[in-house]
C-alpha cells in the first residue's frame, strides 16, 4: 500500500538510546536489508578470475555465509546507540573491587594508533622491528624494577594466562631441581582467592589446597604451616589480598614455603596498592604476574584485551616463555631462554596493550607510581571510615586500595541483598562495586575507588551508599529504575539459552 520496503527495522531511528525512547535496540540482523552494503576495497587491477576458477569444486561454498547487510550509516547508528546503552569509566566512577577501574589517560590511545606500531607484522625480522623490541625491553625492565624481580615475559595476554604461565614455570622448576621423582602435587591458595587462581592451578596440573583466613582476614599462619609438606609445589597469594588487606606475615609465609622447597606466586591484580611502596620481590615472591589492564591503565575494553606479564627471580628466568626480546651489541633481537616452558601466545603477547602500558609508565614515572598507591589507599580508607556504622565491615582494620563491606545487616533487616545495593547505586550515577566476592564475606560489597577519583567523588559515592542503606526497602529488589533496561532476568537466559540470533525462539 505505502510502497514502503518490508523487512528490516529502521536504522535511522534512535528510539533505543536512553536519550530518547529506551526501546530495545534491534540487532544488526534485524537492520539488515538484502543487497545493501557498506564495503569497499582498494582497486587492484587484477585479473577477475571467478570463484570456480580459484577454488576446487568440493571446497566451494554452495551459498555464501549470511552476514548482516547494512549501509555504513546504519552500522554507525547501531553502534553509536549501543554505546549510549553502556556505562564506562569515561562516564563516571566504576568502583568495582579487584578490577582497578581507573581512568585511562587519552595519550595511550594515541600511542596504540601509531602506524609505526600498529602496522608492523609480527613475523618481520628483528632488524625491521627495533623500535618494538626496544619498547618491550623498556617495559619489561620497568616492570622488573616495580616488582623487584629479575626477568619478565610479556607474552601472557591476561591475568589468568599469567597465572597459568607462572604455574608452568613452577612445574618446570620442580621438574628440574627435584628430578623426575618429585611428587609435588599441591598448590596452596587462600579461601579469599580469585576464581582464576584455583582454575589455573588445575590447568597447571596441580591440586588446589585451600588455606583458611584468620580473624584478621589474612592467611592463618598456623593452618598454613600445618598444610606445608613436600607435596606442596607452592602457594599463590595476592598482597594486598582480595579483602584489600595487606598480608603482614608475608615474609614469614614466603620463608615457610621456601623451606619446604615450594615457590611463592604473586597474583598482581592488586599491585596498584603498593606501587613504589613495597615490592613482591622484596617480600620473597618468586613469580609475579601483573594485570596491566588494572594497574597500568590499559583500558578494559568491556572485558579485554588486557596483558598479564610474568616476572620471576633470577633463578627462574631460564624457564620463562620465549622468545624474549633482548639487547646485545647495541641491537635488539629475540632469544628463547634455555629451559623455556615454551610459547604461551601465538605471537609476542598483546603488544599494542603493552605499548599503552609503556606510555603510562613513562607518563607516571617513579614519582607518580608511588603517588598512585598513596591516593588509591587513601581513597579506600577514607571510604571505609565513612561507611562505618552504615554497613558492616567484616575485617575492620586499615585497608589498602579497596575495602570490603557487607550488606548482611540490610539483608536481615530489610531483605536487601548486596546485589540490590549494587543495582541501586546504578540509579545514583555510579557503577556498582563487586558483589558476592570474596566468598569469605557474606553479602560482600568490594569497593575500589582507585586513585583517579577525586575526594569529592569518593565522598559522593560514600553518601550514595549511605543513602541507600538509610532508605533500604524490599522494593530495592526492583532496582535499577531508569537504566536502559530494568533488572535483567538471568535465570531465563540460562534456562532458555539463546546465544545467537539464529537460536531465537528455539530456547
Amino acid at each position: 500500500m505505502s510502497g514502503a520496503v518490508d523487512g528490516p527495522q529502521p536504522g535511522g531511528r534512535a528510539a533505543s538510546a536512553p536519550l530518547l525512547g529506551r526501546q530495545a535496540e534491534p540487532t544488526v540482523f534485524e537492520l539488515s536489508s538484502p543487497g545493501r552494503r557498506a564495503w569497499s576495497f582498494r582497486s587492484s587491477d587484477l585479473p577477475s578470475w571467478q570463484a570456480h576458477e580459484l577454488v576446487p569444486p568440493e571446497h566451494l561454498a554452495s551459498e555464501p555465509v549470511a552476514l548482516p547487510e547494512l549501509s555504513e550509516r546504519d552500522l554507525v547508528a547501531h553502534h553509536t546507540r549501543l554505546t549510549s546503552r553502556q556505562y564506562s569509566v569515561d562516564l563516571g566512577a566504576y568502583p568495582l573491587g579487584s578490577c582497578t577501574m581507573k581512568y585511562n589517560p587519552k595519550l595511550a590511545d594515541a600511542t596504540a594508533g601509531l602506524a609505526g606500531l600498529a602496522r608492523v607484522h609480527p613475523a618481520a625480522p628483528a632488524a625491521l622491528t627495533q623500535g618494538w623490541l626496544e619498547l618491550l625491553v623498556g617495559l619489561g625492565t620497568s616492570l622488573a624494577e616495580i616488582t623487584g624481580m629479575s626477568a619478565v615475559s610479556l607474552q601472557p595476554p591476561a591475568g589468568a594466562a599469567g597465572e597459568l604461565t607462572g604455574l608452568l614455570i613452577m612445574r618446570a622448576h620442580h621438574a628440574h631441581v627435584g628430578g623426575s621423582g618429585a611428587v609435588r602435587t599441591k598448590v596452596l591458595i587462600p579461601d579469599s582467592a580469585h576464581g582464576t587462581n584455583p582454575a589455573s592451578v588445575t590447568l597447571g596440573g596441580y591440586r588446589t589446597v585451600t588455606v583458611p583466613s584468620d580473624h584478621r582476614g589474612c592467611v592463618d599462619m598456623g593452618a598454613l604451616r600445618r598444610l606445608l609438606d613436600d607435596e606442596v609445589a607452592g602457594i599463590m597469594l595476592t598482597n594486598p589480598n582480595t579483602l584489600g588487606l595487606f598480608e603482614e606475615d608475608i615474609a614469614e609465609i614466603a620463608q615457610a614455603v621456601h623451606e619446604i622447597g615450594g615457590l611463592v606466586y604473586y597474583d598482581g591484580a592488586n599491585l596498584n596498592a603498593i606501587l613504589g611502596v613495597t615490592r613482591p620481590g622484596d617480600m620473597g615472591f618468586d613469580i609475579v604476574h601483573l594485570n596491566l589492564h588494572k594497574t597500568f591503565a590499559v583500558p578494559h575494553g568491556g572485558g579485554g584485551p588486557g596483558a598479564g606479564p610474568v616476572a620471576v627471580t633470577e633463578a627462574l628466568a631460564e624457564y620463562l616463555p620465549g622468545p624474549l626480546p633482548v639487547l646485545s651489541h647495541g641491537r635488539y633481537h629475540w632469544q628463547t631462554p634455555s629451559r623455556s616452558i615454551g610459547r604461551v601466545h601465538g605471537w609476542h603477547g598483546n603488544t599494542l596493550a603493552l605499548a599503552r602500558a609503556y606510555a603510562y609508565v613513562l607518563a607516571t614515572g617513579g614519582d607518580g607510581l608511588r603517588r598512585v598507591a598513596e591516593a588509591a589507599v587513601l581513597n579506600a580508607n577514607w571510604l571505609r571510615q565513612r561507611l562505618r556504622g552504615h554497613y558492616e565491615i567484616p575485617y575492620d582494620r586499615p585497608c589498602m586500595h579497596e575495602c570490603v563491606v557487607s550488606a548482611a545487616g540490610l539483608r536481615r533487616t530489610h531483605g536487601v541483598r548486596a546485589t540490590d545495593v549494587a543495582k541501586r547505586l546504578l540509579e545514583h550515577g555510579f557503577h556498582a562495586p563487586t558483589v558476592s566476592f570474596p566468598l569469605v564475606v557474606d553479602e560482600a560489597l568490594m569497593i575500589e575507588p582507585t586513585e583517579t577519583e577525586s575526594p569529592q567523588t569518593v565522598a559522593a559515592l560514600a553518601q550514595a551508599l549511605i543513602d541507600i542503606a538509610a532508605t533500604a526497602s524490599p522494593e530495592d529488589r526492583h532496582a535499577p529504575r531508569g537504566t536502559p533496561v530494568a533488572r535483567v532476568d538471568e535465570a531465563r537466559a540460562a534456562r532458555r539459552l539463546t546465544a545467537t540470533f539464529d537460536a531465537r525462539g528455539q530456547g
Partner: protein
Amino acid sequence: MSEVPGYVPHTDAEMATMLEFLGLGSLDELFSVVPEALRLVARPAGEAGGRRYLDLPDGLGEPDVLAEVERLALANVACTGWGVAPDAGLVCFAGGGAYDHEVPQVVPALAGRSEYVTAYTPYQPEVAQGVLQALFEYQTMVARLSGLAVANASLYDGASASVEAANLAAAVTGRGSAWVSTGVHPHWRATLATFAAGTGLDLTSAPLVGGTTSWKTPPAPAPAAVVVQHPNYLGCLEDLAAARRAADELGALLVVAFDPVSAGLVRTPGSWGADVVVGEGQPFGTPLSFGGPYLGLFACRLEHVRRLPGRLVGETLDARGRTAYVSTLRTREQDIRREKASSNVCTNQTLIAVACAIQLAWLGTSGLRELALRCARATRYTRERLLAIDGVEPLVEGATLREFAVRLPVAPAVVVERLADDGFLAGVVLGDEGGTGGDYGEGLLVAATERRTRSEIDAYSEALAKVLR
C-alpha cells in the same frame, strides 16, 4: 618532573584533610601495615639515605611521552597503508597467521568509542547492554562463519583457542591425548605443547604429505581430538572429509582451526562435520599490531555448550519484558566453578571481538565473498608471477586461497632481508618460527590479501627475480 603524577587529582591540601579524618599524620602512615623492612622510600629529593626507592625516572608530560613512543614507532619499518606512505614502508606479502587486510575507518571510529573501550566485563547487565548486545551479534556471526551452533564471546588468540579446544575435547571424551596436524600453525602447536605440560595432554603429530595432512597412522590410545588447520599453515586447503573420517574412526572430536576469511568462498568447517572450530579473528578489523591483541574465535556444537570456555552472552528479558542481554551459563566460569572449571579465562578480548563484529557487518554477505575472492585472485596472480621466476619452485602443491609456500635458490631469510631494501616484506621464513616448526623444509610463505595490487605484485616479483639472479 611529572606534571600530574599518576593522574592523581588530589591536591596536597585535600590529602591532608582526608588523612586528618583518618587520624593519620602522613601518607606513609597509610602503609604502616607494611613491615618496615619491606618498605621502599619515596623518591628522595637529594639522597636515598641508604633506603631503597623505585629506580625509575620521574614521569614525563604528555608531549614528551608521545615523542618517545613516536621515536620507537619510527624505529620500526611498518607495512604500507594508512599512515605509512608507499615509499616509507614495506608492501606486505607476509602472512603466516597475521594478515594485512583493510580496516575501514568505521571500525576504529566505533570500536574506539570510550563506552566500549573503558567498560569492564559486563557484570551489571542493566548498564552494559552495549557491550553485551555487540557480543551477542559477534557470537552469531562467528557461529555462522564456522557453521556451528554456538560461539563464545572471544578468547585471547587463535593459539589459545586451539588449546581450549583440545581441553574441551579431553573433557568431553575423557581421553588424554590429541592428534595434531603438522599443518597447524607452528606457534599454535608450540602453545598447545606448553599448556599440555600442565594438563598432561599427549600430543601426536600427523604429517603433511604434499601439502595436506596424512591421517594414515593413528596414535594409540585413541585421542580426544583430531586437530587440523584449514587452509593449513602452508596455505593449502585440507581434506576435511578425511579428517572427519579419521576422527570418526577413533571416536574423537574433530577440531578445525579455520581461516575465517576463507568462509567467503569455501564450505564452513561445520558443514564438514567439525565438532569444534577455532580460528584467529585478526583479519577482521584488527591491524597487524606486531601480533596482538588478536582474537581467538571459538565455536562448537550446542551439545558442548556447557564446556564452552570463556564468556557467553545470551538473550533474555528485563523486568519490563524488553529484550535484554546478559552473560549466561556463568556456572561454567572460573569465578564460580573455581578449581573445577575447565578453563581459567576471565579477561578475554572483548573489544577486539566488537571490532570484528563491526567489520563483519561492514562486509556483509557480499563483502565477505568479495574479500575472499580478491585475496584468492591476488594470491593466484602472485603465485603465477613468482613461479615464472627461474629457480622458484612450489614447496608443496595444493589449492590455496591467500597464501602459498615456495622453495628458493637463496636462503629465504636473506631474501627477506634484501627485499626489505626494495620496500617489500617478502614473506614469512619457514622454519624460523621458533619453538615447534621447521617441519616444512626451507622455504618462504607468501601471502597476498585484497590490499595487494597488480603493480605491487609485479614490482615484488621483479625485485625477487633481481635478488635471485
